[in-house]
């Protein structure tokens, strides 16, 4: 069976073209080395269909295959879906603690402890002022000073409460901006639905839209920072994505195949983990951490007011629910500080002032407040430590993921050299063919010329 003289030219041409595509892919990788979520691509090569030859003169032979060069089979992205799953799990837990730590951080800041302006210092000054009144029970100056110190104390308590409420509101606002209509989840849901459609379309035609799939994986990474997600691969290359309640296992769809399906968070309590879970754990009412702080602060203020009023034998502090937000020196005393009762007897008697002053160090007041500060500090300390741990785990998974899918410049450089050389070699093979044909065409059959 005759073989075309130009057969070798074709083989070299395939080689040239294949090496060119390899160089293109390398260029694409280098260009995207810093693109977030990019996974490196490589061209998959395969030897092209060989030419089958009939070999004569051999009894047993059925023929021979003459190689015909190389074909590009496709471009694949190098990515490990299992590492993606691991990363998303760690990312969810990291963002859970991160959100909690941030919310609790502002709650802790509002305490201003330890310091000169915290409630602890103000309490000391308040008790001291009562002790001063007990020294000068008939002195209006001492009573004036007492009322000022009492005002400073109630101001501090009110300020702490309102700042904690601010921290709670801010966290709630963040949560709403994630899950609400037009929020981040619904934006991502829309983009995912669009990507699902496009990707499915390409896959139907047999193309692998690597860069779109990278984009989709990046969006899933982002979703995983908001809450625990589950991804269900559909046969056409599309995906169902939903949030998973970590406690009940219930799912809340974000994207169903090619349509966005996010209808907002469920009514009532849920445990989505991630940023949403962290924000909820810190700021939800009722049951959030800050909500608990507010309750403690209210009960502390109530005890303070009731105990002082009890020892005072009248109304020194007044409050309405919520106690910590409304505690104040009773208005009758506020307008006439001289009317503070310091004793039950003559002008020099100070039994009332002493009774109040001796509340100092009371386990129900100072003790409760100290324990409260320790609890706030402990909660934040724990959240920060958990965040650090989660960060280490997430970093290590991300490292492994980058190890697989990341672009290594050195590797790309050596590939560049390799493919360039291969290209040169193919070109050399082609010029060899050319010389051979030159001999055949220009130098043969010239006998007698």
């Amino acid at each position, binding site marked *: 069976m005759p073989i075309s003289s130009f057969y070798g030219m074709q083989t070299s041409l395939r080689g040239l073209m294949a090496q060119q595509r390899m160089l293109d892919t390398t260029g694409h990788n280098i260009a995207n*080395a*810093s693109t977030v979520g990019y996974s490196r691509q490589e061209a998959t090569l395969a030897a092209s269909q060989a030419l089958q030859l009939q070999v004569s003169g051999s009894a047993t032979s059925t023929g021979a295959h003459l190689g015909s060069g190389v074909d590009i089979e496709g471009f694949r992205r190098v990515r490990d879906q299992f590492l993606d799953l691991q990363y998303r799990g760690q990312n969810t837990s990291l963002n859970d603690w991160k959100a909690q730590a941030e919310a609790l*951080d502002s709650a*802790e*800041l509002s*305490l201003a*402890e*330890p310091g000169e302006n915290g409630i*602890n*210092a103000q*309490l*000391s*000054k308040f*008790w*001291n002022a009562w*002790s*001063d009144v*007990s*020294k000068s*029970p*008939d002195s209006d100056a001492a009573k004036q000073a007492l009322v000022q110190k009492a005002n400073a104390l109630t101001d501090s308590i009110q300020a702490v409460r309102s700042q904690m409420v601010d921290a709670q509101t801010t966290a709630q606002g963040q949560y709403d901006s994630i899950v609400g209509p037009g929020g981040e989840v619904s934006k991502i849901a829309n983009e995912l639905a669009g990507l699902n459609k496009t990707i499915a379309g390409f896959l139907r035609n047999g193309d692998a839209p690597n860069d779109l799939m990278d984009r989709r994986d990046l969006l899933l990474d982002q979703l995983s920072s908001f809450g625990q997600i589950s991804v269900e691969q559909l046969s056409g290359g599309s995906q169902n994505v939903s949030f998973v309640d970590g406690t009940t296992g219930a799912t809340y769809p974000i994207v169903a195949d090619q349509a966005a399906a996010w209808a907002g968070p469920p009514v009532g309590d849920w445990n989505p983990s991630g940023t949403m879970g962290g924000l909820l754990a810190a700021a939800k009412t009722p049951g959030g951490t800050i909500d608990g702080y507010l309750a403690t602060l209210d009960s502390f203020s109530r005890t303070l007011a009731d105990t002082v009023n009890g020892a005072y034998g009248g109304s020194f502090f007044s409050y309405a629910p919520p106690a910590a937000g409304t505690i104040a020196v009773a208005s009758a005393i506020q307008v006439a500080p001289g009317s503070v009762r310091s004793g039950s*007897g*003559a*002008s*020099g*008697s*100070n*039994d009332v002032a*002493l009774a109040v*002053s*001796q509340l*100092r*160090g009371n386990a129900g007041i*100072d003790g409760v407040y*100290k*324990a409260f*500060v*320790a*609890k*706030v*500090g*402990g909660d*934040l*300390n724990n959240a*920060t430590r958990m965040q650090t741990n989660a960060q280490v785990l997430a*970093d290590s998974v*991300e*490292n492994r993921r*980058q*190890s*697989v899918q*990341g*672009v*290594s*410049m*050195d*590797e790309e*450089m*050596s590939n560049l*050299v390799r493919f360039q050389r291969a290209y040169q070699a193919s070109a050399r093979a082609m010029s060899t063919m050319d010389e051979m044909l030159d001999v055949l065409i220009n130098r043969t059959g010239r006998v007698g010329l």
Partner: protein
Amino acid sequence: MRVTTAMIQRNVLADLNGLNERLARTQSKASSGKEITRPSDDPFNTARAMGLRQSLEANDQYVRNIQDAQGWQQATETALDSITGYINRAHDLLIQGSTDTVDQTSRNAIAAEIDQIIQGVKESANATYGDKYLLSGTATSVAPYKIGADDAYQGDEGGLDPAIPGVVREIGPGVTMSINSVARELLGDGRAAPADGKLLNSLRDIADHLRANDGAALRGADIPALKSRLDTLLEIRARNGATTNRLESATARLAQIQEAVTTQLSETEDADIAKTMIQFNSQSAAYQASLRAGANIVQASLMDFLR
């Protein structure tokens, strides 16, 4: 393991961030001098430090209260001392006037001086500390005695009558003490019926007996009576002295507690500066080394060696 460019960058950055964070914490420790700047740094020790701080504040207040009480005691002591002087003078005059060699004119003159002594004693009893009367019980805004013929005690019996709390100072956690003396215990109500046998009563009797030229009464009843008043006064002064002693020992105890608490507070929340500085230096060295290493690793690439 395949190491990619992004990984190196991420790791270098994460390491630098970590070092930076630690440096910032050490720096804030060094500049504030405090181990604990926020409750979450060390929740347990924060609560402890808060308690210690409250003890410090409270003790400062107790020290101020004790100083006030000591001032009160000293003023009381001065007043009692001057009353003692009057009694001694009255005693001298009594001895002088009780001998029958003294005639009526002289006895009248002595009686006139005794009258002055009565007013002097009342003035001494009206001593004040600041704007408060020392010896009128808890009625500190009322002078215990009126100058003149009226010898009735004007104050109350706070501190003398165990049922009525007197002038009380808080000198320790839950510790209070009554610091006042009541003038009535010594001076009484003068000639009020029935006779109370107190100092003003006795002095008025002496003056009467002098004017009545009653040498026997002066010698018989008045001398021992006045002696017994002096004993009462000394008893009151001794009581006052005991209170002063108690205040002094309370001051000494508070000073010791204050020192111990200050030490504990410092151990709880103050940064060990030497340790902090050494930490700071080693961290800053690590940071610089890490910067240099990072810069070299990130820069180097195969590109530098390919032509």
